[in-house]
């Protein structure tokens, strides 16, 4: 694979760049903990590792919750711990893993099915009918016991733990925690969630069986660390491709990250969101644009990425409206200011629009009511205008659509800004947007 010939940044061809992109994009897009991040979450890591190890070796049952905002690295931490433990044959041979996700196992029946599947007990259970979930679970655990002669430790990892708490009667959680309290089988239950108040969601009988071990993960990345993470993500290992290429590339990465624009953008992003994911998001576009004709990370691309992530999508949609629709929006804006709080309907908007058109008829064409209504309905489809709840939905059939009360979801400022940057916008319209018609 590695080419014999030495080549630098400029001589590299498509194949090389594909490989570079391959590695870098895999790093950025996949949910793996960045390398050299061992320093962070050290205490949490030890705590969790210890719990699992004790379960596997001594047969101790435990339960714990890992709580942290999304993107803090809960799943990453868990998977890195598990892969580390998998190396230890004493532990990996002794413990079975069951992974559940609240998004997928949306009720307890599915969850038990999935547990059976992951424990490979479908054959044992076959068509047996069980009176309760507890019975079924204990049967499953019993079946494992007979296979091994002694009871088998099981690790349950529940992602999106808070969703399990919404299941009916919280049967699954109750049973899992109950097993972890009793002596039957050594079981470790680890829940991952981003809700800080998750314990409050648990019913009393479930809560009392939970060990109340909470492990918190927060975004603890300092700005310097964030920059380091970027650098690590972009740096190529020296033996990956040609040595000359990699050294050139790596020194280029160092330079790139020290550029003022890049640093400022990173700082800007970091101030908004401290998670690694957000820091990575800005690197995606510069990486994607790499190629033989564009062999360097470009600070302009970083700016592009920043612009893309921070762009106001509503303004972008407003740019694509027709003049007629803009007229209707402006009319609605004025009406909303005029009748503060009270309802607006299409008839009023059309009336206002006509008033405007009659004054400035030389530059703006007048459209009939059906055409305006159609244009207006398009605005509703785009959800720039919304029917007021209550009158709109419950009584929708009862009121003719011209008279349904509506609400404008565009702020006056957005309207004015749109008009200023709108190409080919008649100046009368701009005037009208800022000054309502004299009544």
């Amino acid at each position, binding site marked *: 694979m590695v080419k014999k010939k030495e080549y630098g940044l400029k001589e590299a061809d498509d194949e090389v760049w594909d490989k570079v992109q391959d590695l870098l994009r895999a790093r950025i*897009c996949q949910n793996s903990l960045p390398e050299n991040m061992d320093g962070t979450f050290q205490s949490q890591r030890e705590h969790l590792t210890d719990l699992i190890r004790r379960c596997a070796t001594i047969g101790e049952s435990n339960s714990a919750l890992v709580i942290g905002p999304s993107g803090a690295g809960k799943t990453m931490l868990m998977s890195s711990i598990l892969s580390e433990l998998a190396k230890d044959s004493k532990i990996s041979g002794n413990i079975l893993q069951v992974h559940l996700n609240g998004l997928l196992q949306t009720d307890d029946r599915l969850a038990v099915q999935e547990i059976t599947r992951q424990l490979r007990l479908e054959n044992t259970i076959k068509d047996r009918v069980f009176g309760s979930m507890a019975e079924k679970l204990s049967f499953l655990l019993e079946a494992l016991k007979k296979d091994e002669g002694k009871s088998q430790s099981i690790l349950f990892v529940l992602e999106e733990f808070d969703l399990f708490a919404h299941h009916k009667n919280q049967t699954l959680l109750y049973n899992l925690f109950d097993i972890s309290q009793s002596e039957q089988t050594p079981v470790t239950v680890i829940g991952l969630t981003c809700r800080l108040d998750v314990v409050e969601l648990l019913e009393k009988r479930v809560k009392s069986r939970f060990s109340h071990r909470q492990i918190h993960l927060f975004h603890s990345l300092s700005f310097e660390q964030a920059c380091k993470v970027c650098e690590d993500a972009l740096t190529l290992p020296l033996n990956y491709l040609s040595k000359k290429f990699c050294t050139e590339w790596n020194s280029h990465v160092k330079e790139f990250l020290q550029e003022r624009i890049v640093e400022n953008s990173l700082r800007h992003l970091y101030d908004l969101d401290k998670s690694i994911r957000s820091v990575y998001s800005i690197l995606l576009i510069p990486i994607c644009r790499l190629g033989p004709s564009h062999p360097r990370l470009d600070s302009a691309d970083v700016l592009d990425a920043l612009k893309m992530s921070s762009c106001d999508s509503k303004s972008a949609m407003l740019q694509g409206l027709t003049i007629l629709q803009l007229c209707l929006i402006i009319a609605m804006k004025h009406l909303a200011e005029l009748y503060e709080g009270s309802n607006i309907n299409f*008839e009023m908007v059309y009336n206002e629009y006509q008033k405007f058109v009659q004054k400035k008829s030389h530059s703006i064409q007048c459209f009939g009511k059906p055409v305006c209504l159609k244009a207006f309905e398009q605005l509703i489809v785009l959800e720039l205008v919304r029917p007021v709840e209550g009158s709109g939905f419950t009584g929708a059939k009862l009121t003719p659509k*011209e008279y349904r009360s509506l609400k404008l979801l565009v702020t006056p400022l957005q309207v004015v800004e749109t008009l200023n940057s709108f190409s080919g916008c008649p100046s009368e319209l701009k005037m009208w947007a800022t000054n309502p018609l004299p009544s």
Partner: protein
Amino acid sequence: METLFLLGKGNANQKISSFFVTELAGNPSSYLHYGHSSTGKTFLSRKIIEAKGAPQAFVNCIECQSQRLLYEDILGELSGMLPCVQNDYARYARCETANDFVRLLKNLIANEKWEKETVYIVLDNAERLRNMEGHILPVFLRLSELSDCNVCVILLTQIIWEKFNATSGYLDPVKINFPDYSKNELLQIMTLDAPKEYSVAFYSSYVNLLLSIFHMACRDLSELRHLALINFPKYIEPIEKGDATEGDAHKLWRNIEPHLKKALQTVFLREVSSSQWEQYQLSDTSTLPPLLSARAHVELPFYSKFLLIAAYLASYNPAKSDRRFFAKSHGKIRQTKRMKKAETSSQLTGPKAFQLERLMAIFYSIVDVRVAPTAHIFSQISTLVTLQLLSQIGSGDQLDAPKYRCCVSLDFIRSVARTVNFEVMKYLYEFAA
């Protein structure tokens, strides 16, 4: 046709194609392509994925009202096993929950040996996912994480991401805006439609003319192309007849202008089919086809017409003005200016509800002949409700005092009144002097 839409899409196109590289492992787990209709969202996504030759599933969420249909469609598209006559309408697998879907997807990818490739799932009209169970959207957004496969989900929608009620636990997709075509881009693209018999420059000037009229109300490419297509025969009519040549721009313009103006009044409405429209153009009459002139033409029995008029009056007149219009001796009309100014026009606020008794009272006073209050009359009211000309308000349990509202427009009621020689304007509070 293929290069057609890509014109002027340079910006978005470049942005997107740089993202899509199939052989590579790293892909963001989801994209959101948003933009107005016919800005090439579906087309561009399809073209790019096809160019990569990656396994793909295109599913339109409008077709799937339940999650089961959605999952089975995606699996069917990916596996190439869509229900058809040949395979006796078999499906790839029965799949009712997200759990099954992820498991089956994993199996499929393992079976087809797609581990190295990126599997694309494109969901058109993705805003519909919001109406399904709450967990479906987040499942699709983090599908690659959940299934542990190289899957990339592309959501196509006209709605901005903020409206997807993004709460915690959602993985934000990479958002790409599809900007609208500018006037010049529209002109370039539509010129590609030029028929063989005429020069491109000639067609281009025609399109330019068309755009100058329609661009104000319509920026939708497919609608504009439709308009250009159906009006073109009229435009070239003088040339066909030999009255003019391609160079006579002025003459051609004078010929087509009134027709385009007329078309403008019905843009987007598509009340008549294209063939009807062509026929109308050929017939050279100034009257619009019947469908066009009376948008809602309903033939009603005699008393029903009066009932409807009475309902309209009851809905749009304030109750206190009834005395003035319908009582034989109403005394002096005292109308202070303050009173009239205080309220906004009822034509703007819409119809008010009224009671059956008031409707009947107005009805008896506007019908010239004496009508007995028989069951026939009352059954006609319920007929009007079924025709949705009236609507009944509140639950049906109020048998003795039901309330109604009139749902027809002023133009409609005027045309109804005209057929029975009733001057409705005289009785309307706002229009009566």
